[in-house]
């Protein structure tokens, strides 16, 4: 079982590296730190992502105040969708910025 997951992870990593021309560059990085990402909301068992809770949403809108992509945060698809609406609502209420300069 552990092997299966490992292979799957390797495949995912390989796809990411495929974008780069230089295969040597990707080579040494194999298996260095490929941390399995976990959905914060699944592990913490958050049912409802509240748009009023700006503090909770802050980590998902870094620096430029863009919504952090799922491939970086590791949030699962379902929660990313909910997070997206929550962030957009929070922006309307000026709880979160649309953009920062």
């Amino acid at each position, binding site marked *: 079982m*552990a*092997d299966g997951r490992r292979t799957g992870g390797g495949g995912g990593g390989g796809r990411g590296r495929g974008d780069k021309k230089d295969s040597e560059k990707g080579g040494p990085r194999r298996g260095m730190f490929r941390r399995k990402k976990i959905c914060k909301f699944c592990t913490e068992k958050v*049912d409802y992502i509240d748009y009023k809770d700006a503090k909770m949403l802050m980590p998902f809108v870094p620096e430029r105040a863009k919504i952090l992509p799922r491939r970086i945060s590791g949030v699962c698809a379902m929660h990313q969708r909910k997070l997206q609406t929550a962030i957009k609502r929070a922006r309307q209420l000026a709880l979160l910025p649309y953009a920062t300069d």
Partner: protein
Amino acid sequence: MSDARQYELVYILSPDATEQEITDLHTQVESIIARYQGELLKTENWGRRRMAFRIGKHREGTYVLEVFKGTGDLTKELDRRLKVIDNVIRHLCVRVDEELRVAERDRARRQADVDRRVAKGLPVGGPPRRSRDDDGDTDSGDETEVR
């Protein structure tokens, strides 16, 4: 029952609004809700807080949250009224009953799962948590190669 939906209304008053004006607006909202046979469930005054960006010429605003039950006509009327009032610099009305119902269902389902596990004498924790622990091990100790 079927057409009574739960909404959350948040409005931001301009920072120069007095306490009196805030309570006045609140009673106004209350009366509109009452007129449309709605039911006010909760009111929260978040007080003055800094906004993430400038709205008009304001940098701060007084936030007020109202949770109520009502129909679509009620929200339409509230929306219309709040737009007219100059003191209100921003408002947002969101329907929440469905999302809350989903959240409640998920919670109940998880609780049922925990109960079942307890009844069976299985460890309570759930699969997601376990998998995270496994991964933690794989990262540090590289379990796969040891096996």
